[in-house]
């Protein structure tokens, strides 16, 4: 019989090793899955992890990693602050949409004015949009004690309806021959979130994500507010005893994660996507939850996890087109990653021990 035994002290070694072990276990089990599907497992895994970085067309895929990874990291950093404090914002997808709508709307309002301040205003509008959307569950929780998980999740679907509505109405391109979707911001110089170095994939969203990582690191490790966030997550009663105001913390964590998600949406709509359209959102807000946990809610971990997640996305797409793997298999593969991570995470706080079967 196997028993779990709580460690007196969380294991440092395991907390670093867990992500690596989880990735290895995912490779093994994913390989079995691909083999059962009749594909060469080594080739499939190789395609997913190797091809985007060092393959023949890596020059094309590498910038894509930044483009996919930046919004994931940016959103996940925001979410991790709340998750650390036990405040569960599940609706980043909605905040991401609202950030995009607000940002794009601000930019389109100036069209076709050519001025340096258009883009900064869009950035601010995007952050405000996401923040406001997240403040709805925050306010309801503080005022009426509602569950932020449900409210924030439900608001995703409301945001999707808003997105559909503005792409067909308010923000529809007047010169779009009746097709749904806004003007393409990529072709509006002052509002375009262009690549900073051509062909690198590096746009303002990537820069912001890196800044967010540093900001979150400093906040959590060097600032009283970050200490209070961690304290609230680990021991809510002790946090209250230490003088933390729970309402203020809820407003901060949800507002911050909403603002960062909104920023991610704004950088996406003004850059890689360019257009406010019905199918603008592709689930970054939900995947970011996985990224946040994969990165162990640690800023640097999230940076690495965001990269890894982007890698499996792009690698997965390559595997789909080159090897004909079904899309569902790639999703299972990504799911496995989270599953193994959470499972092995147990070993940070517990050790496994083989117990002698106790006989009567």
């Amino acid at each position: 019989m196997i028993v779990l035994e709580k460690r007196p002290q969380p294991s440092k070694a395991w907390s670093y090793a867990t992500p690596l072990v989880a990735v290895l276990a995912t490779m093994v089990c994913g390989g079995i899955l691909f083999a059962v599907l009749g594909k060469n497992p080594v080739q499939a895994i190789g395609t997913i992890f190797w091809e985007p970085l060092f393959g023949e067309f890596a020059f094309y895929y590498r910038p894509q990693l930044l483009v996919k990874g930046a919004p994931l990291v940016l959103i996940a950093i925001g979410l991790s602050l709340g998750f650390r404090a036990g405040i569960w914002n599940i609706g980043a997808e909605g905040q991401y949409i609202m950030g995009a709508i607000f940002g794009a709307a601000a930019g389109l309002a100036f069209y076709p004015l050519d001025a340096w301040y258009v883009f900064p205003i869009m950035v601010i509008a995007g952050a405000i949009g996401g923040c406001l959307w997240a403040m709805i569950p925050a306010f309801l929780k503080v005022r009426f004690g509602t569950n932020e998980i449900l409210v924030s999740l439900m608001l995703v679907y409301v945001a999707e309806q808003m997105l559909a509505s503005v792409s067909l109405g308010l923000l529809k391109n007047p010169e779009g021959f009746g097709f749904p979707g806004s003007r393409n911001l990529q072709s509006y110089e002052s509002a375009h979130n262009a690549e900073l170095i051509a062909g690198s994939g590096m746009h303002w969203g990537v820069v912001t994500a890196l800044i967010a990582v540093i900001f979150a690191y400093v906040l959590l490790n060097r600032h009283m507010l970050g200490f209070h966030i961690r304290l609230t997550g680990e021991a809510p009663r002790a946090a209250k005893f230490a003088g933390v105001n729970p309402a203020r913390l809820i407003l901060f964590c949800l507002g911050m994660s909403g603002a960062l998600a909104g920023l991610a949406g704004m950088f996406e709509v003004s850059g890689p996507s360019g257009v406010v359209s019905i199918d603008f959102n592709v689930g970054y807000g939900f995947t970011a939850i996985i990224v946040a946990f994969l990165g162990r809610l640690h800023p640097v971990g999230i940076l690495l996890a965001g990269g890894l997640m982007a890698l499996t996305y792009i690698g997965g797409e390559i595997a789909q087109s080159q090897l004909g793997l079904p899309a569902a298999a790639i999703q299972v593969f990504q799911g496995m990653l989270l599953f193994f991570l959470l499972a092995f995470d147990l070993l940070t706080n517990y050790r496994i021990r083989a117990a002698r079967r106790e006989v009567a």
Partner: protein
Amino acid sequence: MTTPLLSLQGLTKAYPGVVANDQVSFDIGEGEVHALLGENGAGKSTLVKMIYGLVKPDSGTMLLRGQPFAPPEPRAARADGIAMVFQHFSLFDALNVAENIALGMENPPPMGDLASRIREVSETYGLPLDPFRTVGDLSAGERQRVEIIRCLLQDPKLLIMDEPTSVLTPQEVEILFETLNKLRSEGTSILYISHKLEEIRTLCDHATILRLGKNVGECIPSETSARDMAEMMVGTILQTPERSGREFGDVALDVSGLSVPSPSDFGTTLKNVHMKVRKGEVLGIGGVAGNGQDELLGVLSGEIQTAADAIRFNGQAIGKLGPTARRKLGVLTAPEERLGHAAAPDMSLTENALLTGSVREGLESNGFLKWAETQSFAKKIIESFDVRTPGPENAARSLSGGNLQKFVIGREVLQNPDVLVVNQPTWGVDAAAAASIRQAILDLAAKGTAVVCISQDLDELMEISDSFAALNEGRLSAPRETTGLTVDEIGLMMGGAHGMEVAHV
């Protein structure tokens, strides 16, 4: 000599890193009240868990009436006539007494029959209890009666009681002892676990003393002095805290007309509490657990806010201030629950030092943390209060209860408070550590701090406090000078025996 009821021979049980019981042997005779004495962590609980079938010994044997006895699970132990009353009750607040008892039975009889059997047993043994009352409304003493009656219904040969009196008023203790004496006269053996020596001297026929998992001696309690037993238990010579005669200054903490509804459903509402504590004075607040102690601490720490006027510190109304603002003024508190309230279990001692020390120790500037200073503050606590730990980077939960308690008290004491409120400062702490914590509190008072010490340990309160008051159902009795108080008076202040025909004050 007749065969003993239960004979333990060389019982050993090791956990990773610690030998909880090392070759423990002793006998419990028929109709004997046998005390198992030892400090926290001496291995008492592990030993009785082995007898009750909750834990398997690594080696050693048990004989029940000469027959080998190795219960694989508590059910088997119960079938052999062994019953146990745990220190922490396992009762459902929302159910009534009879329902709670039925839940613990293998084949509960119909409710009507059960109720009449409960009445019968409770009358025979002098434990008044109405089977149809809701457990949530019962006092701690009454809840314990539910547990005892649950055991007595099994007609046990050996009744194990784990620290039964820690939640009782003196009058309730008396009732319990009468019951136990009656059981003994009927031939039931009792294994009585406690560290309260006077009780053991009045009640028990025989005592086995455990220290660090080993049987370090046996004695006849009625023929041994409490001090000798204590020294066997601790293994060293105990120092009694010294109290220097001192003058009290002005009133530092003034609570008047404080009424606060409890934040939780089964909590206690504080009703019209008045108290004044002068500089240099130690006010002891006694009372059975669950009579408003947690709420009183919460109100004084600022976790629960109240009318501004209800609490004054040096004349300033502070009822509406939060914990941080009160700390800044010099009102510090140490809650009872160490893990999760006074300290965050998974955080390091350094981070836990920051938890309350940030304001007064200047551990932050503009919100940015000074980790180096925080770490040296944590080290200072560890050194001055002899906290046993490899270093301040260790998690709070890795410390033993007593060590963490020393850390929590030390953290507040070292911040030089003007008012210090502590709840159960020595709960679960070994005797030597308890003595040093009490000494630290007295030293602080000698420097002019007004101290409020909430505790359920009356001996402790008598030892350190200058005046005494008791909490009973959220009301605080008028404080009285400790010198000259008798146990009977204290008992009455604590509300007498709940449910007995003693007039409520």
